[in-house]
């Protein structure tokens, strides 16, 4: 089964696609499927933020010259109006425009315009998620396409890992044209390689959504992720917070998570889905378990988790019934027995012996080994854990990939990575390092308007209404808008992945797996420059 451009067509709710693997008793709910259509989904706030700021002085005479020359639509003077409206400076491409003959600042007869970097935009950047990267992701979510060149959308500024890796052609031949027609390129993945009689599960893009529990994020966020997953024939994950009834129409695209607290885990929720995820550890807080702060444990959250509202809820670390690979297998067998048609994913963090852990999980019966690197997202984690415990995913992928190859079991298991996958280029680099696909989390939150202010855990939760169960805050975002943003994001990511694969002369993302020979590492040492050419 393959996924090509021709498949990327609208599938409306009226045309739910039946999965051949579905058993009549698997879900008692009519399945819903959102449309895989790109529509504009502009910023939900009154004032969109751009990289640049255009200031207009009082000496402006509203002559409209700027509106005439600007190709980006920054300046608008509506017909019949005497004044130009406030500049839509979020559309401005910045100093690059000065090289053209349509630069408003130079052409203003009153010299009333000036251009500067937007200080508000710089507030939301950090080395891992640079301001450009956030703005680029917003653009992808708003338009469904790759951002303009003034926004660096490929990598952040962390100075290591993915940000130091490039495909060789990016360095040697940045203008290399596409070699394979986009329509012939397949970005889909089969997830079951065990040949164990369980159904095949195919996803049309090599990414799916990471676990975010009801409680850590709003129901709108959860549903938007599920609907986008249904549109793109991929998955989202419940996290460890129970299975809200409103997710039932998307059962076929939901992974239900079994984590150490077992919050909301019931046999009927396991039986409902095509994939179950065992969470042993989370990359952002490896070895520390989960923690839902009391403020976010609202009555609906508490009901879902069968807990007392207002109390902080801890998921202990680790599974207290697992001391060995044999115990681990017992867990997986339990799930497989409860749901004979599901695949089982095992989510682990990245310790020094992550390769051994992966092999152990394979022998325990896992279909998918999900590595969650240490720079991944979280709703709340001690800062010391985010930075210092366990290795970043860039180091873990090749370690595990090579070990599985040496064991002769690489083709019998699906290797999925997460924890710091911010862009489609990160996905491709991860695949080139040895992964099959990736799980994303923060990127989806950014698409919904997250500025990474890191306040998910405090008080009422996210001030942007994404990671909050506060009834007032969560209503800032409509479900329709959020769904469209994520559908657009996936489209933009797929387009970029297809572009790179095409330039690599590949017809399928599966050809890229383990091709680290296509990568190069940016070194601070100048004398290594000739190695590539040799």
């Amino acid at each position, binding site marked *: 089964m393959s996924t090509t451009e021709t498949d990327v067509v609208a599938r409306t709710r009226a045309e739910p696609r039946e999965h051949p693997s579905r058993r009549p008793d698997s879900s008692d709910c009519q399945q819903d499927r959102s449309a895989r259509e790109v529509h504009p989904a502009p910023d939900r*706030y*009154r*004032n969109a*933020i751009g990289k640049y700021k255009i200031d207009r002085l009082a000496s402006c005479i509203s002559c409209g010259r700027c509106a005439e020359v600007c190709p980006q639509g920054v300046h608008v003077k509506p017909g019949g109006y005497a004044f130009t409206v406030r500049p839509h400076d979020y559309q401005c491409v910045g100093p690059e425009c000065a090289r053209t003959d349509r630069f408003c600042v130079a052409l203003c007869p009153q010299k009333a315009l000036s251009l500067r970097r937007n*200080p*508000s935009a710089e507030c*939301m950047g950090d*080395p*891992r998620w640079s301001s450009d990267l956030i703005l680029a992701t917003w653009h992808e979510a708003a338009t469904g396409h790759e951002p303009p060149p003034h926004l660096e959308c490929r990598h952040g500024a962390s*100075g*290591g*890992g993915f*940000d*130091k890796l490039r495909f*060789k052609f*990016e360095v040697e031949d940045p203008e290399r044209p596409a070699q394979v027609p986009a329509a012939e390129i397949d970005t889909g993945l089969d997830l079951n390689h065990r040949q164990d009689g369980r159904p095949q599960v195919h996803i049309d893009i090599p990414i799916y959504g990471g676990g975010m529990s009801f409680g850590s994020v709003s129901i709108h966020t959860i549903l938007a992720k599920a609907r986008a997953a249904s549109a793109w024939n991929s998955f989202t994950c419940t996290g460890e917070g129970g299975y809200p009834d409103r997710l039932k129409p998307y059962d076929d695209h939901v992974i239900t998570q079994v984590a150490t607290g077992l919050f909301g885990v019931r046999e009927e929720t396991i039986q409902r889905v095509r994939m179950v995820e065992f969470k*042993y*550890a989370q990359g952002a807080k*490896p*070895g*520390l378990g989960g923690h839902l702060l009391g403020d976010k444990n609202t009555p609906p959250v508490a009901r879902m988790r069968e807990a007392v509202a207002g109390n902080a809820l801890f998921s*202990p*670390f*680790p599974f207290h019934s697992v001391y060995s690979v044999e115990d681990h297998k017992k867990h997986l067998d339990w799930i497989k027995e409860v749901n004979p048609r599901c695949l089982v994913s095992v989510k682990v963090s990245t*310790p*020094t012996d992550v390769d051994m852990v992966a092999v152990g999980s394979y022998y325990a019966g896992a279909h998918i080994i999900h590595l969650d690197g240490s*720079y*991944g*997202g*979280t*709703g*709340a984690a*001690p*800062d*010391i*854990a*985010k*930075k*210092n*415990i*366990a*290795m*970043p995913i860039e*180091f873990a992928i*090749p*370690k595990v990939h090579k070990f599985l190859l040496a064991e002769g079991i690489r083709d019998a298991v699906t290797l999925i990575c997460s924890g710091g996958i911010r862009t489609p280029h990160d996905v491709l680099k991860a695949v080139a390092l040895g992964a099959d696909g990736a799980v994303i989390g*923060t990127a989806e939150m950014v698409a919904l308007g997250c500025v990474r*202010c*890191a*306040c998910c*855990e405090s*008080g009422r939760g*996210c*001030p942007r209404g994404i990671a909050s169960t506060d009834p007032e805050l969560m209503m800032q975002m409509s479900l329709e808008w959020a769904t469209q943003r994520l559908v657009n994001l996936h489209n933009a990511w797929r387009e970029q992945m297809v572009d790179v694969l095409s330039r690599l002369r590949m017809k399928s993302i599966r050809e890229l797996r383990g091709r680290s020979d296509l990568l*190069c590492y*940016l*070194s601070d040492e100048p004398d*290594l*420059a000739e*190695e590539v050419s040799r």
Partner: protein
Amino acid sequence: MPDRYHIHAVPTPARFRRVGKFGNVDWREDCSRCSNCVKLRCTYDVYRQESAHDHDPAAPLQTLNGCKACLSCVQGCTKGLLGVSVNPEFLDMGDAYWKPDILLTTWNQSDAGKIPVSGAGYRGRFHGPGFDSIWTDMSEIVRPTRDGIHGREYISTSVDIGARPLRLEFDSGGRLLTEPARLLEIQLPAILDMPAWQVQDSHLAEARAMAAKELCSLAVMTAADAAALPPERLPFVVPVMNGDDILESRALLHAVRMAELPDGPEVAKLASDMRSVNPELTVAVRLVLRPTAADRAAELARAGMKILHLCADQHGCERPGNGKPGRHVKDVLREVHVRLVKDGLRDTVTLIAGGGIALAEHMAKAIICGADLVSVDTALLVALGCRVCRDGHAMCSDGRCPVEIGSVDSAYAAQRMVNLMSAWHSQLIEVLGAAGIREVRRLRGEVGRAMFLEDLEKDAFGDIARVAQSRVGA
């Protein structure tokens, strides 16, 4: 059953408004006074708090920088007039090592002793020099306790200072020849050291002594400062002696359990002199980290010195003395540790690492690199509000300190130090818990439970071609 070690953190607000990271709100003209930003948009009520603060005659003069940069007001402003920026005063604090973010998190931890918790993922650079190129290990299955790291079972952070006999020796008559072990057990693998630069210190020395008592740790100070303290504080004090003041300080040497001597050719003899005054005294050598540290450490260990306090500069680097940048303390520690192991001396000495210990993870990583415990110096000043001003610390001595550390009350300062160490202690337990280790003693030199950048890069990217960064721009 002995009491469980617990640090009593007490909320102790800072004396001055902290320099916040955001909140330099640009409020351009033409505001319609709709109050949208104040009443609706700001989830954290920062506008109201700013207003209350500005109208409070008793409030400090500094701006209240409580903005969290969620940008809700900027994006929701009816007329698009608001802008937020990073506070330039914030960026101007500290230096290349003591970065503004380190100062801010230290202040926050000193307020109430809570560990920093935040949402979203890691926000910093992929790696950095020194301790930022080490990751500690975790275990998917092994756990140190059955009921969580804060449960009923105990993760020990106590360490021993002093010589532990490797074996017992008896004479032919069966009489014990081995001297009894003189071990100082402290409950936290950190002692409180003197500031790295000249500060009006006598009241801070008293604060350190008070904090050390609460923490069951030790406070290092000059002999003069120690002599001025009340006797009940002296068991938690480590005076730094020099050769001349030993005889005049007999009373002090009798009252303390440990003392330090600066390294020098006469150090073994001076230590012997001090022990002749107080045979129970534990004597440490304060050794400035230089490129020859490993040789000197082995030499001192052979000469019978049982405790070596290795002091890097305030940026955690050795002092090569030739104008070149020195190695980071993590590298020097590994060299010293391995050298002592190879010479069969490691278990005869206690290594204390100091200088550049700025965050809780530095404590854990220094121990992984080979130290038994660390000494904390500059971080204690930061706990009191210090901004590590860049002008060569001249402001400290001439009374221009922006947070008036010279006038801080000792008890207040002690509580802030206790709070900081409480937060560090909790974070150390997080690291130990994640690694499945039940006592910090077992972390010493455990490089197998850590990951070093150079090893990881070699394993993961060793077969990937290297290209100069300059070929693709910055």
